[in-house]
């Protein structure tokens, strides 16, 4: 496959643009997606190319954004609804969890809900407490909605395309910190590059410890792995990519080899991604376990404004490396 290097933001933009060119039923809606060109510039140029019918600015109405997408999807369109940031999607939790995720079930399969919610996620540059969340696990709690969280350009491209083409609702989160990060993505000739929903990926092989992560946590895990290698510890980095479905087969096969695990996430520690993976490992891999499962997550506190204490609250590669050293 021929590839080129682009920022993750551009990979997402290209995936969305190509799917809109491919299928007239795909449209985008959200705050500032049209005339403003997207708060994160993901829909840059879309209004000019696709027009107001398919690139729809909405009022600041997250409940309606969440629910209109459900109705339009049930009726046969394939909406891609953007929450400017995932913090605002809290206002739409009922539409997402109670409607997008359940209408198929409570009508016993009568309707399909082929929609994608996109949401920028993660802590920003002193964005302060209410705008500094990475709450993907909250949304992954509910059956009926798939949750995808890419860590790089190539994955973002293939995952978003699969999400748009799938007949189930998908919440797709995009780490704000990763938007400018360059990485390879397929070139113009390979517009059908799809990453199956729920398929994880080994980002680095190693025999001593398994680092399980998603989205930005993958970067910290890879940085930590490079640092650990200098001390002779080889870490395997599992990028789950999707929080629902969860590719535990991949985690188990890695864990059977390393017998040790550190879970890395940008989100909060209680009732978390880390809690879930750790619980599943002890339930299903007890005989392979040589050390306690460790978790590296944000500190259990709202994020402050001031720079130094903001950084104290968040995970980083050093915290990952330190956790590994406690168990190898």
């Amino acid at each position, binding site marked *: 496959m021929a590839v080129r290097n682009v920022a993750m933001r551009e990979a997402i933009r290209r995936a969305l643009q190509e799917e809109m060119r491919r299928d007239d039923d795909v449209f985008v809606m959200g705050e500032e997606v049209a005339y403003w060109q997207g708060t994160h510039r993901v829909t840059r140029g879309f209004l000019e190319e696709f027009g107001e019918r398919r690139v729809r600015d909405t009022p600041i*109405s997250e409940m*309606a954004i969440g*629910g209109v997408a459900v109705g339009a999807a049930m009726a046969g369109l394939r909406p891609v609804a953007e929450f400017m940031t995932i913090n605002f999607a809290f206002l739409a939790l009922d539409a997402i969890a109670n409607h997008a995720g359940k209408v198929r079930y409570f009508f016993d*399969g009568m309707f399909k809900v082929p929609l994608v919610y996109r949401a920028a996620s993660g802590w920003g540059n002193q964005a302060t407490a209410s705008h500094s969340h990475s709450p993907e696990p909250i949304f992954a709690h509910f059956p009926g909605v798939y949750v995808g969280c890419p860590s790089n350009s190539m994955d973002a491209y293939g995952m978003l395309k699969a999400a748009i083409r799938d007949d189930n609702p998908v919440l797709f989160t995009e780490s704000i910190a990763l938007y400018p990060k360059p990485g390879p993505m397929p070139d113009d000739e390979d517009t059908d590059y799809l990453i199956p929903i729920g398929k994880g990926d080994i980002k680095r092989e190693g025999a001593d410890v398994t680092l399980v992560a998603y989205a930005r946590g993958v970067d910290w895990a890879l940085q930590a792995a490079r640092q650990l290698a200098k001390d002779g510890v080889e870490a395997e980095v599992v990028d789950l990519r999707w929080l629902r479905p*969860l590719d535990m087969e991949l985690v188990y096969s890695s864990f059977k080899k390393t017998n040790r695990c550190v879970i890395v996430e940008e989100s909060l520690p209680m009732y978390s991604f880390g809690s879930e993976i750790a619980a599943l490992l002890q339930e299903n891999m007890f005989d392979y376990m040589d050390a306690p499962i460790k978790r590296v997550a944000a500190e259990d506190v709202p994020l402050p404004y001031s720079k130094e204490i903001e950084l104290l609250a968040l995970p980083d590669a050093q915290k990952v490396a330190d956790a590994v050293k406690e168990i190898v």
Partner: protein
Amino acid sequence: MASPSKEMLLDWYRQMVLIREFEETCHRLYEEKRITGVYLHLYSGHEASGVGSMAALRPSDHVITAYRDHGIALILGMDPGAVMAEMMGKKTGSSGGKGGSMHLASAQHNFWGGYAIVGGHLPLAAGIALEARYRGSDDVTMTYVGDGATNNGYFHESLNMSSIWDLPVVWIIENNGYGMGTEVDRASGQIELHRKAEAYGIKSLGRVNAQDALEVYAVATQAVDYARKHGPVVVEHVTYRYRGHGVSDKQYDAREDMSAELREWMECREPIKILRDQILKKHKGAKAILAAHEEDARRIVKEAVEFAEASELPNSYQELFQNTYAQSNLVHKTDMSVGAGID
């Protein structure tokens, strides 16, 4: 003003007596514990609201409502047996026993369902109407919303969205005086609920006495025509619920003022009696047909109960998990994946 034919009036009567018989039977079955579950919101007293307004639709139009949905389902022509089986959670229920009383729907009738979160269906209605606009269709989405929901954020966001996008929605506020147990004037700063439309630049056709199917129909035809040609419109149906908020509502027994109010509505503003008088005034010979419709309603509902009670309950894990997700070859499923569903 649209004037319905004799056949239409007789058919409305058929629908209304069927709904009343169905609902009162549901109430009895609940008391006898033959229908279980905690939620059962009956349409008794509301019949003319649904029947008169839906008569203004054509088959390609869309309908969506909240949890007081049995009457709407029957008006659209859903099989009473499948609806009754859903009340009992049977496999043969219209939602396979997964939805119950509050989640009736029928794709073939463009009935997008009953919804249980107050106001939750309102943006869905806007989304369904958006699909029509998107494809250049002039089909309208008839949306029923209770008085209580007009105080919640979904209502305001959805009306506003329908306004800025000129969506073909008829927003029908069924004002039965109470949001659960709270009187409208204790819950809403604006007690003329249709006037909430003004805040969003939406046309309102005002209040309608929704115990009179003819009045309802006359305004609904204007509303549907307006929505088809221009965009959203609001109508307020003033109606009353005969069986409280839901079957567990004991307020009418506990409060003399409420039970007196109920008696007054049932004696003076009874929708079936009003329609019956209107029909017989113009068509004296229709009495036998009306009696036949009443007889049919009893038979149809009796057969629906027999069908439902003879049906099986879903009882397997396969049925429990089925239809959580749409089948998809884009989903990576393994024996050890978590949260992928079992289909």
